[in-house]
């Protein structure tokens, strides 16, 4: 141990705030990326499952265009 006490370890002769801030941000960001990546995969799996459960309705042939005018009724 390079420090005499736990208190000295935290303070680090006045450099504590800088060192601990760096370690905090490092773990925060790495943790966030890891957590986010895990959640994203779970989300994608759930999404894919929903997609396979409900097989999309497929149109047998493209709907023919009639170009009939549509008159919006006013009543």
């Amino acid at each position: 141990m390079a420090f005499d006490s736990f208190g000295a370890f935290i303070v680090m002769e006045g450099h504590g705030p800088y060192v601990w801030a760096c370690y905090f941000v490092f773990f925060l960001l790495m943790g966030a990326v890891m957590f986010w990546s895990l959640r994203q995969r779970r989300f994608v799996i759930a999404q894919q499952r929903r997609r396979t459960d409900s097989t999309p309705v497929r149109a047998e042939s493209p709907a023919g265009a009639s170009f009939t005018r549509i008159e919006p009724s006013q009543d």
Partner: protein
Amino acid sequence: MSEPLLQAVNLECERDDRVLFRDLSFSILPGSLIRVEGPNGSGKTTLLRILAGLNDSYSGDLLWRGKSRNGYREEFLRNMLYLGHRPGIKPLLTPMENLRALMDGRRLLPDKILWQALEGTGLGGFQAVPCRNLSAGQQRRVALARLLIADEPLWILDEVFTAIDIQGVAALERLLIERVENGGAIVVTTHHDLRLPSMQRVTLGGGDGYGY
């Protein structure tokens, strides 16, 4: 049988999770015209761009005179003429300058010939007017003037008849027929009802649309 110029073997193209076509095989023979048909969005333009070498997101093979096209790219490009939706005409230049610029990369011809070609597409008298002052149909005619002087054996033409008037269409049809009779190979897409003798069809959008 003549030797095919370009052969498509098991072409498949997928766009945005949608299969446009799959297992598409055909040969483009000299002295033949192929019309690519299909409803809007069926991939006609995409197929033509793939054949021309503009789009390479396909699987399958394209053979140029029996050999892989990608290995003979330069020879292929030298012998192929492509006209797309966008005619390749600069609005700021005159028809003459445009035609000159388009031909300068392929075949050096005297001004007189280019002038005649523009006359032949009905642009006589407009040769020196900036293209932005011309109508859409006239601008397309500038691009079509290339067909009067092109000696490439393979033509790939996307929607050639767009914005062309009735007389123009008839004349253009005659040009294509004559070209085919002289041994040229042509691939076209058009919604215009083309009646040519010996025309082959490639139909896209035959049911197998969405790939789910």
